[in-house]
């Protein structure tokens, strides 16, 4: 089995999640990583050091500027037949390119796998994660996108060889006109992957800075309980709960929130719930995946610091 992995990178570094995808790839066979871009040699060197990578292919050409789905897919197709599996990340980048590769190979892609059962059998979430489907592919080449958070990141190793791969054709179908990357503005509550919420236990509006610092560290949105809003610590638009916003992020960190049922109704579908409260009997602990009984004024700064190290 030989596996081709299309790496997502910014020219210098691999994007977060690529090493997780390489863990999935390593379960399938010998891994070759394709790093293509206008300038990508540094990223290729980084890829070469990821454990399990046997070879890195580097292609540099101006035609790969931006997301360049058509030209990237065409490049992959120049070597696709040498592989049993072609993997990409289930990110905006990977989702853009891989289906194009799959269709050109007359292959039904397997999207966003969360587990590898065997070389032809995979688990993938459907219905927004409410139904996990185990599917077996009969295609000669498996084209797959990988949900990074479902796999551990691969470690490091001595550098694998980096070879140059000639650019593929320039299809000239699209013209890249630039991109605007948003600064570290916090995501919206309902769209956030991670939310850090504070409750009445925060004590004051001023103290919400602790929550904001932690949220910024995690790229998270900030939320508040009804009690915190009623106490005037935060504006109502931050309210999570039955009368506020209903959220279901991957990670919900409840700080100084006792867990009134109205609050639980707004966040109980979160995938992982962390509760930090000094009251060991707080009802929030009944829904928490992990709970810490501690003074939040000590624990939250510590947590922010721990995440920075």
């Amino acid at each position: 089995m030989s596996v081709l992995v299309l790496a997502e990178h910014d020219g210098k570094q691999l994007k977060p999640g690529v090493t997780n995808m390489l863990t999935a790839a390593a379960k399938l066979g010998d891994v070759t990583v394709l790093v293509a871009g206008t300038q990508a040699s540094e990223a290729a060197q980084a890829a070469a050091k990821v454990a399990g990578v046997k070879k890195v292919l580097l292609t540099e050409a101006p035609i790969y500027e931006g997301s360049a789905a058509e030209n990237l897919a065409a490049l992959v197709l120049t070597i696709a037949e040498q592989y049993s599996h072609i993997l990409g990340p289930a990110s905006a980048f990977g989702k853009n390119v891989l289906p194009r590769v799959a269709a050109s190979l007359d292959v039904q892609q397997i999207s966003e796998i969360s587990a590898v059962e065997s070389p032809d059998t995979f688990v993938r979430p459907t219905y927004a994660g409410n139904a996990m489907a185990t599917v077996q592919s009969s295609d000669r080449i498996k084209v797959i996108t990988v949900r990074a958070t479902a796999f551990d990141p691969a470690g490091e190793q001595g550098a694998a060889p980096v070879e140059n791969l000639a650019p593929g054709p320039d299809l000239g179908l699209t013209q890249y006109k630039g991109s605007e990357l948003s600064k570290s503005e916090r995501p919206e509550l309902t769209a956030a992957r991670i939310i850090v919420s504070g409750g009445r236990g925060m004590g004051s509006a001023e103290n919400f800075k602790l929550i904001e610092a932690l949220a910024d560290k995690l790229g998270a949105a900030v939320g508040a309980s009804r009690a915190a809003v009623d106490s005037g610590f935060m504006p109502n638009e931050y309210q999570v709960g039955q009368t506020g916003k209903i959220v279901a992020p991957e990670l919900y960190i409840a700080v100084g929130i006792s867990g009134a049922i109205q609050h639980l109704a707004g966040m109980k579908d979160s995938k992982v719930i962390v509760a930090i409260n000094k009251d060991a009997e707080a009802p929030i602990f009944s829904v928490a995946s992990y709970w810490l009984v501690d003074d939040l004024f000590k624990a939250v700064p510590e947590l922010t610091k721990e995440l920075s190290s």
Partner: protein
Amino acid sequence: MKVLVTVKRVIDPYVKVRVKSDGSGVETANIKMTMNPFCEIAVEQAVRMKEAGVVTEIVVVSVGAQQSQETLRTAMAMGADRGILVDAGVDVEPLAVAKLLKAIIAKENPQLVITGKQAIDDDSNQTGQMISALMGWPQATFISTITVNGDTADVTREIDGGLEKLTIKLPAVVTSDLRLNEPRYVTLPNIMKAKKKPMEVIKPDALGVDVTPRLKVLKVQEPPSRSAGVKVADVKELVAKLKNEARVI
């Protein structure tokens, strides 16, 4: 300019999905169905372009069971001019859908195809990209704006962490993201008019497309339920659990 829009009939997003007890799939019989929300955005975009005078005709296509005619009627109530149902039953895979659409595109000759970025049932996020690959056309996925200028279109795409701007040659395939527009509510008079708009029903055989699935669904399960919580001793342990066990950071 003629636009072709695809729509899919899916379980209403407000319905709580239940996995069948035999693990063969998800309960879909007798459940409220609706138009996939991203497809709704795609239809809305086409209608706005028609209202702006850029588009002259909107053909809306669905691949699915007979009941998908209701979904096509909704699209026509929103403003599409006519509908085509490829009566292929349920669970047609994206590759087969793309091939069916390729055959329809060959007949209809649209300048622009708009699809939703993904359907909220199988969450594949493939069909638009596959159509464009099979047609050898440019693609712009996850768009939040589109402006047509003669035989090209300027689009903004939603990418991780920001936006990307492209100019694409037409004909092309674009897929709609959430921020492209806010779909209108269909009006009662338009619901009544929609039933008089033309609807064609075609079988996949007539398009010469084999829709045999390539993926075999071995089982479908509920996601693991929330396991009993764990008390952690300190912040260090918490971070370790979040990184290594829950893998959310």
